[in-house]
């Protein structure tokens, strides 16, 4: 399945957000995930099913706020 993650097209076998984070080796605790412009609650990571062409954003906290990259 092909999805867009942080602006890049990616092939993934992940079925849920939890799978995707595991595949990307991202610890869920300190990130937030958005799918198609909706923030997904951490409690829903196991249940939320990804679909073809989903637009996924995974963000975290960085030193702020300089005017650096933005999505």
């Amino acid at each position, binding site marked *: 399945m092909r999805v867009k*993650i*942080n*602006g*890049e097209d*990616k092939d993934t076998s992940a079925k849920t957000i939890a799978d995707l984070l595991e595949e*990307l*080796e*991202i610890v869920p605790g*300190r*990130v*937030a*995930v*958005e799918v198609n*412009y909706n*923030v*997904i*609650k*951490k409690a829903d990571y196991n249940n939320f099913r990804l679909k073809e062409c989903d637009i996924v*954003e*995974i*963000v*975290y*906290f*960085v*030193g*702020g*706020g*300089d*005017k*650096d*990259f*933005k*999505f």
Partner: protein
Amino acid sequence: MEDKLIISGIEFNSRLWVGTGKYKDFEETAKVIEASGADVVTVAVRRVNITDRKSANLLDYIDPSKYKILPNTAGCYTVEDALRYSRLAREAGVSDMVKLEVIGDEKTLFPDVIGLLKATEILAKEGFLVFPYTNDDPIMAKRLEDAGAVAVMPLGAPIGSGLGIRNPYNIKIILEASKVPVIVDAGVGTASDSTIAMELGCDAVLINTAIAGAKDPVAMATAMKHAVIAGRMAYRAGRIQKRLYATASSPLEGML
């Protein structure tokens, strides 16, 4: 006497708040925060690098159990973007606090106060504790308070400019009218600027560039810590009136 800053039931141990941008690395960021004595640190929300997962995490250096993490919406120019970043920040973090920025112009980084007011209204209704970065405009400060802001954060001068408190009289009027805490955001250039803000009666000062851009950031963080404490103490002590002519300090009685 206890002089704690309390906002929406949250106790703050320091009246100096610091930003975490523009440092050379996380070690320096951590040292500066330690030296500043701040317990609130602002952070930005950005994409995780999904191709290089080895990069260090800011929160490995700033323990969220020790510091209050205040995410900002820096870089947001529209209400929609500011809402989006705020909602993501809440999910990524541990609190409902957001330092709301809706920027109006890239050159000045002045806030777009119309957008700011709209975003404040919406986020306050969603249960956010909104700290809006606003202009030194007393009417707008009042409108933001009415819209549900838990504090107002007027600028002293443009972000990163180091011009100090350019309109102390406006800040004074904001302070007189405001029922919520007033925190000067942006504009501080050196220690005396922080002291001036605190002497006016501001509840806290937020500093990033003045510390990060100093030749010795750790030393400047220490200076700012003392400057904020001095300004607050002077405010509470109550300064003397300014007079045009001298008033003698030593008695005239007993002179030869």
